[in-house]
């Protein structure tokens, strides 16, 4: 408790006192105690097993139990049920948090119950006659629960981690999407409370088993999904790194291009699914290099027409490999066109300006940026500022200025971890330096073309 800011301490005390005062004020008579004990037990069980609804938010299936309590045992009963959160089975949960959670859920339960009663709902096991009249007050109770819950939790988050003054401006105001992704499931789960209450009349406590079982199966399916997603990411990363093992200098290139591409995509506010696709395309953008003979990739001097053509082919070879990955559709273009230039002098198609798909314009900038900030056999890594300077220089001719600006903003805000300087292992002696086709300052060209 001591390490909390003073304002947060006061806030928590006020909430706890408020909740306790509500209970003491009573009246506690008339609450069906057996039902209350069973509900509190259910609340305790469900609160001990949180269900993730998205990658960043977790919603407890305790919400339907809390709302069922508001109907079955009234506002005060719901408040008492909420207090069961104090003894919840979660390890690393400190006492202050437990007490606050209990008080906060108690208050939210009380408000839900009070809303329900004020709007004409009768606390107790609902009968067939109560339907459908019971639905509007119940939905209002769900809304009240979710609002009170959000306000109380939001307050404590705001006081313990006050946002820096510039944060709002920089992020472009309040972000609604995360809020919606948390609140919508709360509303969806909340309606299940009415089922528990209604089924209570027919099958007693077994109601909770019937209602919560599908919920836990949904949770199981979601866990499976998250695990598979992780496994998927890890597998793609491993395969991309395998493609790079041969070349000592470009190791980790795919991971870093993937990261920088995602940074740019987020910065220009692509939709989450597109950011994900661009991230993967960034990872896979150079798999086609395997199809280019090693001696051409490693050649130092001027390239012949055929050799340059072989290099120019690598985006197409990459496309050939990943074409069948269904969900990449949007990002496939990013892999194929990541060496196009805004002025139309790139390859393989010589597209210009807006003809180049935006995912390709993103990857092009990320690709060049990582190439410049990494060590190559013919030069040391440049620092980030130099690389940014270089990107600015080619902005508008080689690169899309929008993407360049986005990368610069993102790097200035979040920083960039350039790779460790590479020291070739003993025994690896290169008789000739290997030029990197991604390095914008080199301008790899076929011999004939560069004279023109």
């Amino acid at each position, binding site marked *: 408790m001591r390490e909390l800011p003073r304002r947060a301490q006061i806030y928590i005390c006020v909430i706890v006192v408020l909740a306790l005062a509500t209970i003491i004020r009573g009246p506690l008579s008339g609450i069906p105690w057996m039902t209350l004990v069973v509900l509190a037990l259910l609340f305790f069980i469900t609160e001990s097993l949180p269900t993730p609804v998205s990658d960043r938010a977790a919603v407890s299936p305790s919400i339907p139990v809390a709302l069922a309590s508001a109907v079955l045992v009234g506002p005060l009963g719901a408040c008492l049920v909420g207090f069961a959160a104090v003894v919840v089975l979660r390890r690393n949960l400190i006492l202050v948090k437990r007490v606050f959670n209990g008080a906060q859920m108690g208050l939210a339960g009380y408000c839900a119950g009070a809303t329900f009663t004020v709007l004409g709902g009768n606390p107790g096991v609902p009968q067939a006659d109560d339907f459908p009249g019971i639905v509007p007050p119940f939905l209002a109770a769900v809304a009240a629960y979710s609002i009170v819950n959000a306000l109380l939790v939001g307050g404590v988050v705001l006081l313990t981690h006050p946002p820096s003054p510039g944060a709002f401006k920089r992020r472009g105001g309040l972000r609604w999407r995360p809020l919606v992704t948390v609140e919508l499931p709360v509303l969806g789960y909340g*309606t299940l409370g009415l089922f528990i209450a*209604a089924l209570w009349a027919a099958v*007693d406590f077994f109601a909770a088993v*019937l209602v919560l079982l599908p919920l836990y199966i949904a949770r199981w399916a979601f866990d499976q999904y998250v695990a598979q997603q992780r496994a998927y990411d890890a*597998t793609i990363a491993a395969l991309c790194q395998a493609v790079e093992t041969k070349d000592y200098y470009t190791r980790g290139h795919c991971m870093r291009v993937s990261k920088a591409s995602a940074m740019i995509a987020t910065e220009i506010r692509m939709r989450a699914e597109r950011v994900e696709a661009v991230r993967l395309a960034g990872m896979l953008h150079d798999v086609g290099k395997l199809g280019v003979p090693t001696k051409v990739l490693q050649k130092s001097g001027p390239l012949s027409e055929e050799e340059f053509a072989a290099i120019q082919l690598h985006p197409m070879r990459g496309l050939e490999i990943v074409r069948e990955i*269904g969900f990449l559709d949007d990002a496939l273009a990013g892999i194929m066109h990541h060496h196009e230039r805004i002025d139309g002098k790139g390859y393989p198609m010589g597209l210009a300006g807006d003809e180049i798909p935006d995912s390709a314009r993103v990857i092009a900038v990320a690709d060049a940026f990582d190439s410049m900030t990494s060590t190559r056999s013919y030069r040391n890594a440049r620092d980030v500022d130099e690389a940014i300077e270089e990107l600015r220089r080619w902005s508008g001719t080689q690169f899309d200025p929008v993407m360049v600006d986005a990368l610069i903003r993102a790097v200035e805000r979040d920083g960039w971890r350039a790779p460790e300087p590479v020291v070739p292992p003993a025994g690896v002696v290169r008789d000739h330096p290997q030029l990197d086709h991604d390095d914008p300052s080199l301008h790899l060209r076929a011999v004939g073309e560069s004279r023109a």
Partner: protein
Amino acid sequence: MTRAAASPWGPLGTAQFILIVVTALLVAAAVAGTAASGFDRPDVALAFGVLIALGELTRMTMPGNRQTAPIAAAWALGYTLLLNVGHTTVGHSGLQVIAVTALGMAVGELPHIAVGRAPRLDALARRLITVAIVALAFRPAADDLRPVEERWMIVIVVMVLLVGFSWLVDAGIAAVIRAESTRVRIGVAFRDELRAQVPLGLAIGASGMMLALSAGVMGLVALLVFTGPLLVTQVAFRRYAGIRATYLQTVRALSRVTEVGGYVETGHSRRVSRLALAVGRELGMRESELLELEYAALMHDIGQLSLSDPIPGGATVLTPAEEQRRIAELGAEVIQTTGVLDGVAQIVRRQSDPYLGPEQEDAPPLGSRIIRVVNAFDDLVGGSSDQDRAASVTDRLRLDAAGEYDTRVIEALDKALRRGTPS
């Protein structure tokens, strides 16, 4: 995993044909019977019919190419087990349940058919049969189970037993169909089907029971309120099925890097994986083991990426044993870095180890032995589909088997080749 029986209107297996004909007759009888006796509570029937249609609209494909419509199944089960709506009892017959479900499913399929996603008839028939079993057994007994409040424990036990029984029958039918189309053993297929059904089946069963019981108190409002939570569950399963499919697709696609790099012959990884799966099925491997085998087969040559120069022709069978083992080890290391595919890495690591017979200590896993045989076979036969050449290569493998290959695997390969590999 299996890609057999892809075309819904194409040639059907015997079991599928019988199933579809029986279901069609059942539906015809149900519709005719209900039409003759008149619909009990047409409003309730209509509400459930519409919801079943909507559920059918959101059908999805779970891993293993299993087409399911969990929301439609839950609504149909709810209608089957319905005892009261509000104060009034409902007395619809089992035949009416079948008729309403069939009509709802048909209407829900129309938009799918309109956009060219025709349903798999056998999956459709199975969904209907599962409902029919519960309906025909439960509806006649419905009168004895009311009022629910007084005997809710009996009601629940009856419901659970009936639903469980219908699952067993469904898994049995699915196993027979799968065994027929992919040559997997029936016992193995039955256990696979049961395992695959447990999570969704539990969710559908609990939802259906809850729906039927709560409608007794809440009336038809229950149907509306319940749509949200059902969708949440469905979304979770859909995302899971989606990532599983993408995963396999991606590994299949990326297994081609060795081909594009000129390390192996074109199509090698895919041919090996297809044949390895056929052999694995022949040897009675479970679905989860087959998935690991498929991943391992697709990536078995990934270690070659670490070689500075491709092996001429890419045929690992002709390279010295020491080199083969090094490639296997390098490949296993790559796969190990994923941190999740340890079983696959183990199969790849041991793929070039000799097999000395059943008494060998620390023998390579079955998956490795299969890949070793199939890889050698493909290296020697290549993309050729010449039967005689395949037979002579199999004979050569038999001769070389002592101290090298698992003879059981070679025999299984021979059988799989004779049957023709499932495409």
